[in-house]
C-alpha cells in the first residue's frame, strides 16, 4: 500500500505553519514559512514545496489538505473588504448604524465607535413586511427590489447583503429578492440574513450578514486561487477549511458563508489543546497560549473547547468588549489579554506597576533584542531572572543583549524605588496575576471555578509563565504538548467535520409539544447532515448534538442548554434547563414559565483517528545538559528532545525545547510521557 498524507496549512500574521502527517504511523513533519500578506497563497506554495522536498514526498501522495487563515479577520480590521451594499425592509436602513446605542467605556467623552461597514448611501430599502410569526404583512414589491439593486450596482457595489425584518421566521422575501437580483446582476455577490445568521434581533443579524458580504468576494477569489494553485502543484486532494467553531467544511460551503471562517486560526489552536491534553487523560482544561503581544485563554470541558454563539470582530480597542462589530456565529470561545513577551512594564500615575497592554511588538521589540527598545518588557524580566539565556534564543537564531535589559530594568527600578531583581520578579508576578484574574472572571461569567482544571500551555511564553499562572489559580497540573510551536496546524489535522445550524422559535417551552419540537430539530439536522455529506461523503458516521437557548420568562439573556438524549420531551428539557441554570447561578428563580428563543444542532464527523507519534526515545534517563542560574540558585537544565519515555524531573529545573522554555518549580515533578506531553504536577 502506498503511503498517503494529510497536509495542514495555518496562515498567521508572521508565519505560515505547515504540517505533514502520516495517518498510518502518526508521524508528522513541520515547516515554518514567512507569511506573504499581499498574496498569502505565495507563502503557502513556497512552504509546501520546501516541506515536500525536504521529506521527499510526492504531491500525489497527499490525500487531504486542511486550511486556516487570518486573512478575513485582517480584512475586517483593516477595512479592506468589498464595496458592499445593504437591502433591507422599508423604514429600517439605519438599524445597521443605530446599533446598540451603548458606550463600551462610560468615562471617555471622545469614544470612537466602529463605523458601519456599509455607508448610508449604500443602504437601500424594499417595500415588504414579514410579521413576528412569519406571516406576510406587506407583499414583496418586486419593482422596489430591482430598482434598489440597479441603483446599488450603478454606484459600484460588488457585494450585497439582504436582510429583512423577521426573516428568521420566514425567508421567502429574502429568497425571492435574491432570485430577482441574481438574474439581473449575476456577478453581484449575495448574502442573505436568513442563511448567514437566522436569529432574532435585527441589528446583530444584519451586522453578521453585512460582515459576510464584506469579506465574501475576497474569500471567493482567494480560495479559488489557492485551490487552483495547490492542484497545479500536483496535489489532487480536496481542500477543507477550518471554521470558527472548531469544525471543518468543504471549500464551496466556506465560500458561501465566509464569515464562519473568521476565527479559524485560534479555533484550531484550542482544538489542538483539547486533543493533545486529552492524550494525558485531561478532559477539563484551560488552554493557555502566550505569544509576543497577547495571551489567549480557552476553556475545554469534557474534551471539547467551549463554543460561544456570538463574538465581536474588528474591535476599536482590541481588549475592550463591546467595541467591535457583533458577529452571531458559533465560535470557539477565547479571551484575549494584552499580555505577551513584548508587553511593556511601567508605573501608572498612581505609582502602580502595570504590564501591558502596550507592547514593544517585534520592532523595536524588548530591550534585549538590541533594536532600540529602552523600556523593560516581560521578556527582559525573563532574561534578567535567568529564565531565558542570552545565547540560544528562538532556536539559536538570535542573541539577546543582557546589558540593554539591565539598563531598561534599572531605569524603571529607580523610579519604583525597588531593586532591579525585585522589579523583574514583580513584572512576572503582575503579568501572571493579570492572566489569572482574567481567567477567574471569565470562568465566573459561566458560573464555573478554576479548581480541578489542567492548564495546557502553548506559544513561546506558555511554558515559561504557565506554572505560576496555574499556582495562582489553584491548579495542580500543567501539560506541555510536543511541537507547541505548530500546535494550531496540528489541530487542523485532528478537527472533525462540523456543521452548526440554528433556528429561532421565540415562544414558551410549554406551548410546544415534544413531537413538534422534535420535527424542528430533525429539519435542522437534515440540513447539517447534507453539508457534512458534501464534505465527507454521504455515508460518514456522524454525531449530532442538540441545544436550545432557554430563559425564564422575563429574562433577556439565554442559557444555551444541551438537550437530554432521546426524542424531545418537554418536561425533561425543562429539568435539564433547571439543572444547567443551577450549575451556573447556584439557584433557580421562582419563575414558572420558560421561553425557548433558539434551537441549535451541531453535527460532526471524525475525519481521521487522530494518531500522533511524537517519536519519544526510550532508554535510561538522560542527565542534565548543564545548569542555569535562577534567583533561587543554580538549577539543572535539560533539553526536551533528549528526555526519554517515562523520565521524571524533580523541580527546580529548566527544560528547553528550542522555541520555548519550561520552568519546573521547586517541589514539582515533570514526567515525559510516551504520548509526547511533558506533564508537570505542582506541589499542593
Amino acid at each position, binding site marked *: 500500500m502506498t503511503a498517503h498524507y494529510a497536509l495542514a496549512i495555518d496562515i498567521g500574521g508572521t508565519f505560515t505553519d505547515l504540517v505533514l502527517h502520516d495517518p498510518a504511523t502518526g508521524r508528522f513533519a513541520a515547516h515554518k514559512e514567512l507569511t506573504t500578506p499581499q498574496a498569502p497563497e505565495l507563502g503557502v506554495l513556497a512552504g509546501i514545496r520546501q516541506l515536500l522536498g525536504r521529506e521527499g514526498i510526492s504531491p500525489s501522495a497527499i490525500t487531504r489538505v486542511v486550511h486556516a487563515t487570518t486573512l478575513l479577520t485582517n480584512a475586517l480590521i483593516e477595512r479592506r473588504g468589498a464595496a458592499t451594499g445593504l437591502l433591507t425592509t422599508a423604514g429600517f436602513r439605519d438599524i445597521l448604524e443605530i446599533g446598540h446605542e*451603548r458606550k463600551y467605556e*462610560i468615562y471617555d467623552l471622545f469614544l470612537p465607535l466602529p463605523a458601519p461597514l456599509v455607508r448610508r448611501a449604500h443602504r437601500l430599502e424594499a417595500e415588504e413586511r414579514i410579521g413576528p410569526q412569519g406571516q406576510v404583512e406587506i407583499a414583496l414589491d418586486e419593482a422596489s427590489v430591482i430598482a434598489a439593486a440597479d441603483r446599488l450596482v450603478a454606484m459600484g457595489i460588488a457585494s450585497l447583503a439582504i436582510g429583512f425584518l423577521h426573516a428568521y421566521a420566514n425567508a421567502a422575501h429574502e429568497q425571492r429578492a435574491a432570485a430577482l437580483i441574481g438574474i439581473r446582476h449575476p456577478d453581484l455577490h449575495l448574502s442573505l440574513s436568513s442563511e448567514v445568521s437566522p436569529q432574532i434581533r435585527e441589528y446583530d443579524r444584519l451586522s453578521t450578514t453585512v460582515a459576510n458580504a464584506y469579506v465574501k468576494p475576497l474569500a471567493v477569489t482567494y480560495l479559488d486561487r489557492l485551490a487552483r494553485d495547490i492542484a497545479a502543484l500536483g496535489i489532487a486532494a480536496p481542500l477543507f477549511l477550518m471554521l470558527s467553531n472548531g469544525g471543518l467544511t468543504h471549500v464551496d460551503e466556506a465560500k458561501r458563508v465566509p464569515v464562519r471562517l473568521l476565527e479559524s486560526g485560534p479555533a484550531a489552536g484550542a482544538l489542538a489543546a483539547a486533543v493533545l491534553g486529552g492524550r494525558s487523560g485531561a478532559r477539563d482544561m484551560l488552554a493557555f497560549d502566550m505569544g509576543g503581544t497577547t495571551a489567549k485563554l480557552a476553556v475545554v470541558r469534557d474534551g471539547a473547547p467551549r463554543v460561544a454563539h456570538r463574538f465581536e470582530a474588528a474591535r476599536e480597542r482590541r481588549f475592550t468588549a463591546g467595541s467591535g462589530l457583533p458577529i452571531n456565529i458559533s465560535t470557539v470561545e477565547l479571551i484575549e489579554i494584552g499580555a505577551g513577551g513584548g508587553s511593556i512594564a511601567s508605573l501608572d500615575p498612581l505609582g502602580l506597576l502595570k504590564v501591558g497592554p502596550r507592547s514593544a511588538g517585534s520592532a523595536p521589540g524588548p530591550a534585549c533584542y538590541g533594536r532600540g527598545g529602552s523600556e523593560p518588557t516581560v521578556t527582559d524580566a525573563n532574561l534578567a531572572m535567568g529564565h531565558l539565556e542570552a545565547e540560544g534564543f528562538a532556536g539559536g537564531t538570535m542573541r539577546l543583549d543582557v546589558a540593554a535589559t539591565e539598563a531598561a530594568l534599572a531605569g524603571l527600578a529607580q523610579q519604583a524605588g525597588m531593586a532591579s531583581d525585585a522589579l523583574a520578579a514583580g513584572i512576572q508576578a503582575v503579568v501572571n496575576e493579570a492572566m489569572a484574574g482574567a481567567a477567574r472572571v471569565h470562568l465566573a461569567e459561566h458560573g464555573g471555578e478554576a479548581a480541578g482544571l489542567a492548564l495546557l500551555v502553548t506559544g513561546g511564553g506558555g511554558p515559561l509563565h504557565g506554572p505560576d499562572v496555574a499556582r495562582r489559580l489553584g491548579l495542580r497540573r500543567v501539560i506541555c504538548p510536543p511541537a507547541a510551536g505548530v500546535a494550531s496546524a496540528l489541530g487542523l489535522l485532528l478537527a472533525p467535520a462540523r456543521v452548526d445550524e440554528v433556528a429561532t422559535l421565540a415562544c414558551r417551552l410549554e406551548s410546544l409539544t415534544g413531537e413538534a419540537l422534535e420535527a424542528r430539530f430533525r429539519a435542522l439536522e437534515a440540513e447539517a447532515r447534507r453539508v457534512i455529506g458534501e464534505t465527507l461523503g454521504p455515508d460518514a458516521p456522524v454525531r449530532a448534538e442538540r441545544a436550545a437557548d432557554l430563559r425564564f420568562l*422575563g429574562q433577556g439573556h439565554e442559557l444555551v442548554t444541551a438537550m437530554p438524549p432521546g426524542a424531545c420531551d418537554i418536561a425533561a428539557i425543562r429539568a435539564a434547563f433547571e439543572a444547567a441554570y443551577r450549575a451556573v447561578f447556584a439557584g433557580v428563580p421562582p419563575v414558572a414559565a420558560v421561553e425557548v428563543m433558539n434551537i441549535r444542532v451541531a453535527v460532526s464527523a471524525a475525519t481521521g483517528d487522530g494518531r500522533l507519534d511524537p517519536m519519544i526515545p526510550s532508554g535510561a534517563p538522560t542527565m542534565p545538559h548543564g545548569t542555569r542560574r535562577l534567583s533561587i540558585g543554580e538549577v539543572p537544565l535539560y533539553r526536551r528532545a533528549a528526555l526519554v519515555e517515562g523520565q521524571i524531573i524533580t523541580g527546580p529545573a529548566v527544560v528547553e525545547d528550542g522555541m520555548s522554555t519550561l520552568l519546573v518549580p521547586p517541589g514539582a515533578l515533570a514526567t515525559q510521557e510516551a504520548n509526547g506531553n511533558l506533564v508537570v504536577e505542582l506541589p499542593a
Partner: protein
Amino acid sequence: MFDPVLLELLWARLVSIVDEAAATLLRSSFSTVVRESHDFGCVLTDAQGRSVVQATDSVPSFLCTLPNTIRHFLQEFPPETLQPGDVLITNDIWMGTGHLPDISVAKPIFANGRLVGFAGSVAHSPDIGGRIRSAEARDIFEEGLQIPPMKAISAGVPDATLMRLLRRNTRVPDQVLGDLHAQFTALDLMERRLRDLLAEHGLDDLAALAGEIQARSEAATRAAFAAVPDGVYRAELLTDGLEEPLLLRLALTVAGDSITCDYAGSHAQVPRAINVCLAYTFAYTAFAVKAVLCPAVPNNEGAFAPLTVTAPLGSILNSSHPAAGGARALTGHFLPALVLSALADVLPDQVVAGVGSPLWCMGFSGFRRDGSPIANALFINGGYGASAGRDGTNVLSWPSNVSAASVETIEQSAPWHVRYRRLREGAGGAGTHRGGTGQETLYESRSDQPIAVTFLAERTQPGSAAPGLEGGMPGAPGAVLVNGLHVDPKRQHVVPPGGTVEMRTPGGGGHGLPERRDPALTAADQMDGIA
C-alpha cells in the same frame, strides 16, 4: 509597606472580586434595565463604609451612592449589632439613589473575628409597586413600596415578613424576588473572595490596604484638579420642565486642588416626580467632573474626596421628604451638560457640545390580543455632541448607558408594530464638526384595547435644545406625537387600537463655525442624506 508590585497585585485582585460579582449578578438578573443598561453596582468598602473598589462597568447613577447607603446602615445598625450572615436592605431614596426601584443591599464581612468591610450591591428592581414609571407622581407615597433600613437576612435567616410584603406589593413578584436573590448571591461571592484574599496574604483586616488605595486615588484626583486654573465657572440651562421651563444653575469653583459644585439658584422642588436627591446630584456631577478631568482614576472614596457638591435643601437638586423622584433622570441627566458647559470656558478642547440627553423612554401598560397583560419600558437615545476633533455620534446613550430593545423582540412580545426606526435627517447641530443626529421611531398599536403610555422625554422645546459650542449650532429639539399630534410628554396618554406613538429624539449640538467644515465631510453628509 506597599511597593508598586504588591499594591498592584492586591488591588487587581480586589477589582477582579467586584467584577466577578458583577458578572454573576448580571447573568442571573431578571430586570431589563439591569441587563440591558447595566443599571446596577457592586462595591467593596472598608469597615467604615468607605468605598475601596467598585465594579468596572456600572452606570454613573451609582457613583458613591452605595458607600453612602452603608454609612446610613451603620448609623441604624452599629458594628456591635452586626453578625456574620446578616444582609441589610433599603430603598429609601435619600439614603440610597433617589428613586424607589433601586434596592440597595449590603453584607458585613467578618475576618479574624472582626468587621473588616462591607460587600454592597444596588440594582434596579423590575417593579416596586406604585404608579407605573411616570413623572406624574406628586409625592413619594404614590411611587411604591418603601423599605426602611432593616435586616433582610439575620445571621443567614431571611426575614419572611419582608419577603411576603415585597411579594404582595409588586406586580411581578417572582422577578423582584429573583433579582434580590441575584444580589444576595453577588454579596456572598464578594465575602468569600475577600476573606480568601486576606488569608492568603496574611492580612488581619482591610484597613491599611484600603487607606493606601484611597490615598493614592485622592492624590491623583487632586493633581488633575490642580491643573485647572483657579476660578469660578458658571453655567445655566432651561429644561422643558412642567407647565413652564425649569432653571438649573451651577457655580463650579476650582480652588487649588479642590472643586466645589454649587447649584444654588436652581428651581425649587416640584410636586412631580422629577426631583433629585443630593446623592444623585453628586453622582452625575462627579461623573462629569471625572470624565473631563481624570477619567483614568479608579472609582473609590479617595477619588471623589476633593469634590464637594451642594444644593439648597428643598431645591429640585436636593429634594426633601416627601418629594417624589421616580423620573429624576429628566432633571439629573442635565447635570453633566451643566458641568461640561461650565468647564468649556476654561477647557474648550476637553468637552463636547450639548448632548441630546437625557435618555428617552416610553412606558406602557395594556393587553395583548390574547388578553394577557403587559407592562414594560422601551428606551431610546438622542444624538451626541460634537467636539473639537470629531462629529458627534448619531444616537448614543449619554450620560447613562442604556441600549434600545430590538424591533423584532418588541414585536414578538408586545402589541406594538414598529413602522420605522431611522435616523432623523438634519437633526444634528451644524458646525465645523456636526452634532450627532437623533432617531425617529413610530409604534402602531396592535392591541384590541387601549394602551396607557407615559414618557421620559426632554429637550422638546427650542429653548432646551442641545446647545452648540464655539460657534456650532444647537441640535434639533425632540418631539412626542400621539396619533400624529404633538403631546405633552410629562402626562399619561391613551393610545386606542390602531393608534400611533412617534418619538423623535433630540440631536446633539455642533462644534465650531459651520462655514469652516471640511467640504469633503459636507459632501459625504449630502451623499448619505444625513445633514
